[in-house]
């Protein structure tokens, strides 16, 4: 007996064809309906979902190809096989081009018909399963990463759900390490654009000349080294979302270009003249106070208002201390699984230390510290000594390589008044590496701390 009963609709104006196909497919174990015309078929399809339509190409009134076109344009969830009494290459090609799964000639070889139908139904099943899984995946992942029972986090999750469905621009504000990219991803996953790409641009990691070509693409020969035409991020998004992280770090010139793209919805590649239409949604994020920068004349006010259509403020971890145990446990499970270690939790001392810490680097700092503890700790419990946090009472210096590196980077940055290009040179690493280390350790220049909203 058939494990899953598929439904088939036979569409043919000849009674004898309908009868014998209904009979034959019933024997094969399918659930079969018949329609004498294309319009009858459409009403049956409107009434219930059918897995496969087998339609004759020649029928009075609407013919099989018109029916196929209608099924496609209405985006009905069904596969179509076209049948015909006269084999002609031309009509076969037309049917397949219009999206028919297969094309069969009457009378059918029983084996061929049976294989064609089986294949069409298999493809239909896979498509449906794929769509279902993608939907489930998108829904289940979207908000689970944003952990926290605190009031501010609950509000953030509500805001994400509210704004995801509407296509407006979102501005995410929050200190480094609070999870701005996670929020952007969650919005994208819950939005109607979720089956299109999410393109992430770390504006802070790019030099002024690079960022233009990154965002807008360039024509061949636009500058030295531009050997090929390259699509920018806005084009790459192709109906998806562009996430502009650290938006405050772009120059006034790029701000002007960006504003034009947001207004016109078209880009001009670097070195090009032709405008290209682009379809995207922008989510921007910053760890600075953009309103302050606008007052200081370092950020264009018109761009600020364009971006600040819907603002989400991510609280720093120190303002939601209550979430620390939950987050720490989540990261412990995540890294234990990744590294195949069997930790069951934190001992009392470790948990006290985690809760009392001020977390200047926010959730990212917490994640890094737990990850390191999973490496150095002894199962089954993480102890305070495994956590690379200075005990406030003891004040003993942390001599781990990581802590030393962090302190050294701060020192060099301060020496060069936070000029990252010079600091990177002094450290003997490139600017991007330094940028990532600054993010990783949650470092901020002194004046930025003042500018950041608490």
């Amino acid at each position, binding site marked *: *007996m*058939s494990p899953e009963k598929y439904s088939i609709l036979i569409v043919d104006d000849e009674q*004898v064809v309908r009868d014998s196909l209904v009979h034959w497919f*019933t*024997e094969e174990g399918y659930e079969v309906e018949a329609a004498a015309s294309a319009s009858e078929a459409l009403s049956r399809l409107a009434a219930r979902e059918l897995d496969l339509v087998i339609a004759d190409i020649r029928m009075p009134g609407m013919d099989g190809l018109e029916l196929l076109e209608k099924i496609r344009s209405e985006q009905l969830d069904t596969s179509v096989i076209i049948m015909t009494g006269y084999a002609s290459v031309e009509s076969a090609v037309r049917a397949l081009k219009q999206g028919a799964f297969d094309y069969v000639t009457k009378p059918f*070889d*029983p084996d061929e018909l049976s294989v064609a139908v089986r294949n069409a139904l298999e493809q239909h099943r896979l498509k449906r399963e794929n769509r279902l899984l993608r939907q489930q995946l998108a829904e289940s992942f979207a908000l689970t990463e944003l952990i926290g029972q605190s009031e501010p986090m609950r509000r953030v999750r509500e805001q994400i759900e509210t704004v995801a469905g509407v296509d407006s621009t979102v501005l995410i504000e929050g200190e480094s390490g609070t999870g701005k990219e996670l929020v952007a991803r969650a919005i994208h996953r819950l939005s109607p654009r979720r089956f299109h790409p999410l393109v992430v641009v770390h504006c802070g990691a790019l030099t002024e000349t690079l960022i233009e070509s990154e965002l807008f693409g360039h024509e061949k020969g636009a500058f030295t080294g531009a050997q090929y035409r390259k699509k920018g991020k806005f084009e790459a998004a192709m109906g998806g979302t562009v996430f502009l992280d650290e938006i405050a770090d772009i120059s006034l010139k790029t701000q002007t270009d960006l504003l034009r793209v947001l207004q016109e919805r078209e880009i001009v590649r670097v070195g090009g003249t032709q405008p290209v239409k682009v379809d995207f949604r922008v989510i921007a994020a910053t760890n600075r106070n953009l309103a302050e920068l606008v007052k200081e004349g370092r950020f264009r006010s018109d761009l600020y208002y364009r971006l600040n259509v819907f603002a989400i403020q991510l609280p720093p971890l120190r303002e939601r201390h209550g979430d620390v145990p939950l987050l720490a446990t989540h990261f412990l499970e995540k890294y234990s699984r990744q590294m195949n270690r069997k930790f069951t939790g934190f001992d009392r001392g470790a948990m006290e230390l985690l809760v009392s810490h001020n977390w200047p680097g926010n959730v990212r700092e917490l994640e890094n510290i737990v990850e390191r503890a999973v490496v150095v700790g002894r199962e089954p419990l993480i102890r305070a000594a495994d956590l690379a946090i200075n005990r406030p009472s003891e004040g003993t210096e942390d001599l781990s390589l990581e802590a030393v590196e962090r302190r050294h980077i701060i020192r060099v940055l301060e020496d060069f008044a936070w000029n990252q290009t010079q600091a990177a040179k002094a450290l003997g690493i490139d600017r991007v590496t330094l940028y990532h280390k600054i993010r990783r350790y949650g470092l901020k220049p002194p004046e930025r701390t003042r500018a950041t909203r608490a």
Partner: protein
Amino acid sequence: MKLPAWAAGVRLVPVGGFPPELLEEISRRSGIPAGSPALDPSPAYDPARDQYDSTRLLLELKARWEGRVMGAAGLDLFIPVLTFVFGEAEMGGRAAVFSIHRLRQEFYGLPPNRDLLVERAVREMLHELGHLAGLPHCPDAACLMSPAHSVEQVDAKSAEYCPACQAGLERAGG
């Protein structure tokens, strides 16, 4: 393989000139009694296709016999939409027909093999009997009720119904 008691009430009748000793053997091996006289298939003949319309044969069989009837034919059978059929049955109805025309090795240009022909004919007849009992095709490739559109597929299945189809067969007593 054991057929339920109701199968003994089905009549196995020749359609056209069916070899009598073959009919005898199929009847003996299945326990379904053979009857007579033979059905005249000429009303089902389609000169354009030089084949016999199996659906029409079912109507003729029902017109001639009361109760359940199984036609045994040596003719090339078809239904309008298919190039040929090995047999046809009314699902859960009264009449069925099967043909040995395309079960013979000679049809494929091979030397005759009587044992193989009997084997195939019995399977095909039991398959149509299953449809007569209302059974659809079975996804179990070894089951008699699995679909077969070529002799290779007929040979590939076993001579038994799977437990689920066997149970369905018993229930179809009526």
